[in-house]
């Protein structure tokens, strides 16, 4: 009798309960790992910030290094901030003028531009530029110091790197950013005057008189206060990313890049919170 070939069993495309449970547990493990990495990161940053506070208020402040950092952060960022501020003012004026002209409100241009620049555009643009320039600089510098063992060398020279490198940079960024924003605002309004003069003839003194006439204390004060927080956020994130960089040279690039991304995002979040608080107070 001829034997029949056994019919091959069809492979089921529906995963078995065992396969499904394995996939589910793998997914759960992945999510658990992501959650634990995130929470560990939050914990690390919290300890880092706590250490910054602790070292700021313990004896022997590194004043010379602090001044050097103020120069590096403040003075060396000034040309970029000035040019950006002026261009921002020119563009904003040129873009706003036709809309105001439609309503016959061209005379309100200086006041409107000044309020916009001082309340929002000046701080946020300066914050984002500084997040890019200062944040990446700190991330890359500290990251490369870590990779080339300079931070270890500092430690064996009986110097606290947290005090010498981190505290000085964070305080310098916190104090320099409001000053940079003031410059940015001033150059922005000046740029606005240039923009206004492109299609007309406006006296500089009159323009500034009208611009500052529209500004009151509550336009200026919250805007400056929030820039201290912008500076602190940029300083902490830039230093944290650089200080905790890995050992390879690749980690220097990663530290610089993530410092820019995270500090830019945080600047925008801080701005949103500051606007909400200001709105509640008014």
């Amino acid at each position, binding site marked *: 009798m001829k034997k029949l070939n056994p019919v091959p069993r069809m492979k089921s495309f529906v995963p078995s309960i065992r396969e499904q449970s394995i996939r589910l547990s793998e997914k759960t493990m992945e999510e658990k790992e992501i959650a634990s990495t995130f929470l560990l990161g939050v914990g690390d940053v919290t300890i880092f910030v706590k250490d910054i506070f602790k070292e700021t208020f313990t004896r022997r402040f590194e004043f010379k290094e602090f001044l050097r950092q103020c120069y590096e952060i403040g003075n060396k960022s000034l040309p970029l901030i000035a040019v950006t501020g002026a261009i921002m003012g020119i563009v904003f004026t040129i873009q706003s003028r036709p809309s105001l002209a439609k309503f016959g409100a061209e005379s309100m241009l200086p006041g409107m531009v000044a309020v916009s620049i001082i309340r929002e555009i000046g701080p946020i643009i300066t914050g984002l530029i500084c997040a890019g320039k200062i944040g990446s600089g700190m991330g890359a*510098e500290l990251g*490369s*110091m870590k990779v*080339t*063992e*300079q931070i*270890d*060398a*500092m*430690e*064996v*020279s*009986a*110097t*606290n790197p947290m005090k010498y490198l981190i505290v000085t940079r964070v305080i310098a960024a916190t104090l320099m950013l409001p000053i940079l924003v003031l410059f940015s605002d001033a150059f922005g309004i000046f740029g606005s005057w240039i923009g206004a003069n492109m299609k007309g003839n406006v006296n500089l003194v009159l323009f500034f008189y009208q611009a500052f006439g529209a500004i009151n204390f509550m336009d200026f004060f919250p805007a400056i206060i929030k820039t201290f927080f912008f500076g602190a956020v940029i300083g902490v994130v830039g230093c944290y990313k650089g200080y905790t960089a890995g050992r390879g040279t690749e980690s220097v690039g990663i530290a610089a890049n993530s410092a820019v991304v995270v500090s830019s995002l945080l600047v925008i979040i801080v701005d949103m919170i500051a606007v909400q608080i200001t709105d509640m107070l008014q």
Partner: protein
Amino acid sequence: MMNSQTDHRENVSAVKTPLKPMIEINNLRKAFGTQEVLRNVSLNLYNGENLVVLGKSGSGKSVLIKCMVRLLNYDSGTINVLGNEVSSLSMKELNELRMKVGFLFQSSALYDSMTVKQNLEFPLRRINKELNEKEIDDKIHEVLENVGLAESLNKMPSQLSGGMRKRISLARTIIVDPLIMLYDEPTTGLDPVTSDEISALINEVQKKYKTSSIIITHDIECARATANRVLMLKDGEVYLEGKIEDFNKSTDPLIKSFFK
């Protein structure tokens, strides 16, 4: 300050060497996660000797010397440096101990943003706070003369070659008159001629500054030139300890592969 340091050195030198080691390590264990890097490592460094620690890359040599100055915390065992148990020191006490221990890093670790002069001033101003400007300048010139780079005073680290960076790094280490020197791969990445010069410099430092040194290396020529005693690590454990001649004569395949 210089006098007080000299007195301190004389006191240490007066200690009977075989009885009281400068560094005494017992059953040291260090792991990174599940990877055990050092397992029950014990060693002694005696006064005035050069102890070379040999081993393949990844055998735990650098971790060992980083534990000695608590750049890394260890899991168990004891490290006693100049009579102090390293793990139990407060930060202030640890910094005082670190002032007496010089550390030459594998990558030289010169501060990129500072000139050679500022690099040398950095530890000196922090450790010898009462030195005046002239004393600091004299000390800088002295150590630069000793490493043969007196003309590099105002150069930036980026303007120096690998060998010059190593020399300046050595100058920065010896400027504070350490009692113990820890060299982490001092000749790595250097050409044979410069490596020989660095090895000779290590011996000069030992004689002139009367230091006791641990030299971490896998460069046999450097080991031959500098070692009073050799200790070999394999997979985080002490594989063999003895005189360089013992290693030269050994028939062990691993040791022969190093000393061929």
